[in-house]
């Protein structure tokens, strides 16, 4: 690791001014960045600590019932937040998968998103809740759907002067449930070979009116499984339907072969996890066994 400048801005405008220079990197928990610096996989001239910016370390309820989570809020805070556990349980569950307790005490939601790993565990849940990434830079603010910010492994649309300020989770309609599951060879401290988050919304007749399915570790970025979603809309939940959605999700995936799993194996995992997450989400909404 080489020497670098270290800055601790106290406000978002100060942060943006500091980031607007070559080779400046934000440091939140550092659980991705510090190992990268130690292994010289990243060169930094300036490191900017975001954890002292109050606006980025808060969770606050939005007027319309949604929730705003500052980019620097830790996984531990999110997993223990009553409002997240009650309204967005798939997110509370997925941040609690990140590394171990000591990692979660440091790791931030914004870091999980901005590190842009295809395997990032918090991202599929955010995508299936329809979360927005609120970005700020020298030219102003913009908000994108979380899935729109990834351009490749480790790469995002953020410009050099831009930072992720917060994530907004929209208010969810009645009768909505989401579930994330991942597959890892070891139970913990491991990277997902595949992960699926499924969210469904049912109408009064138990028909699926909205579905958002997001996949981890099966493409260069986290992906929406749009073909799988299409198979669900307008249908009544059933095991057969979820089998079909799983098969569609496997074709939505574009995995590679690597040491953690072959592409074929990953597609198989996607179909299984898709079916299982849909079935558990449905269980939260409808009593009794699925037809």
């Amino acid at each position, binding site marked *: 690791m080489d020497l*670098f400048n270290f800055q601790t801005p106290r406000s978002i405008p100060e942060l943006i001014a500091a980031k607007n220079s070559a080779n400046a990197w934000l440091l939140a928990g*550092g659980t991705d960045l*510090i190992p990268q610096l130690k292994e010289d996989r990243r060169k930094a001239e300036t490191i900017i600590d975001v954890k002292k910016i109050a606006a980025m370390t808060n969770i606050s309820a939005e007027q319309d019932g949604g929730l705003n989570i500052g980019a620097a809020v830790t996984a531990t805070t999110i997993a223990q937040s009553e409002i997240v556990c009650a309204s967005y349980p798939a997110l509370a569950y997925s941040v609690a998968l990140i590394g*171990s*307790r*000591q*990692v979660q005490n*440091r790791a931030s939601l914004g870091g999980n998103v901005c590190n842009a790993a295809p395997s990032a565990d918090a991202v599929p849940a955010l995508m299936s809740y329809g979360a927005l990434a609120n970005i700020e830079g020298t030219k102003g603010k913009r908000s994108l759907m979380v899935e729109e910010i990834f351009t490749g492994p480790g790469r995002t649309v953020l410009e050099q002067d831009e930072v992720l300020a917060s994530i907004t989770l929209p208010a969810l309609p009645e009768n909505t449930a989401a579930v994330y599951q991942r597959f890892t060879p070891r139970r913990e*401290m491991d990277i997902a070979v595949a992960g699926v988050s499924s969210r469904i919304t049912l109408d009064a007749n138990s028909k699926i009116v909205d579905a958002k399915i997001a996949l981890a570790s099966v493409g260069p970025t986290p992906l929406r499984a749009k073909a799988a979603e299409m198979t669900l809309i307008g249908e009544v939940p059933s095991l057969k339907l979820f089998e079909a959605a799983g098969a569609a999700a496997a074709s939505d995936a574009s995995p590679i072969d690597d040491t953690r799993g072959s592409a074929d194996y990953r597609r198989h995992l996607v179909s299984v996890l898709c079916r299982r997450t849909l079935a558990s989400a449905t269980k939260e909404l409808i009593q009794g066994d699925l037809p």
Partner: protein
Amino acid sequence: MPSISLTLNGRSVSGEVETKTLLVDYIRENQKLTGTHVGCDTSQCGSCVVHVDGKSVKSCTMLAVQVDGSEVTTIEGLATGEELHPMQEAFRQNHGLQCGFCTPGMVMSAVDLVAGNPDISETEIREGLEGNICRCTGYHNIVKSVQAGAKAMGG
């Protein structure tokens, strides 16, 4: 070089550090507190766990400059004089260690884990210690120690 001030084991310390100095190196080299160990140096094993503002963290994956203004506690900060902290005493009574290399990290993780939870279950302990690796004990006595320590601490 930036200068940092922090409370280390209840004592105010300050001084200059290079920006790239890891917290664990600051603790071991600058402060000469060698109870905090380095096993993997990659955030896996947990032998470097200390508390920053009361929360367990892996000090091999933090910069010293990040703790400016914080309270840091290492294994040396747990005992009161000659009297061991209840979690240390529980490890001693229950044979929660063999070679002892992982022990400082285990104890620091355990103290954070059981705070406010005197009746913590075996499952919660095993899950809570997933970031701490021990190559000697097989964990059985560590779990027993943490359970006893939790009771003794009274939450």
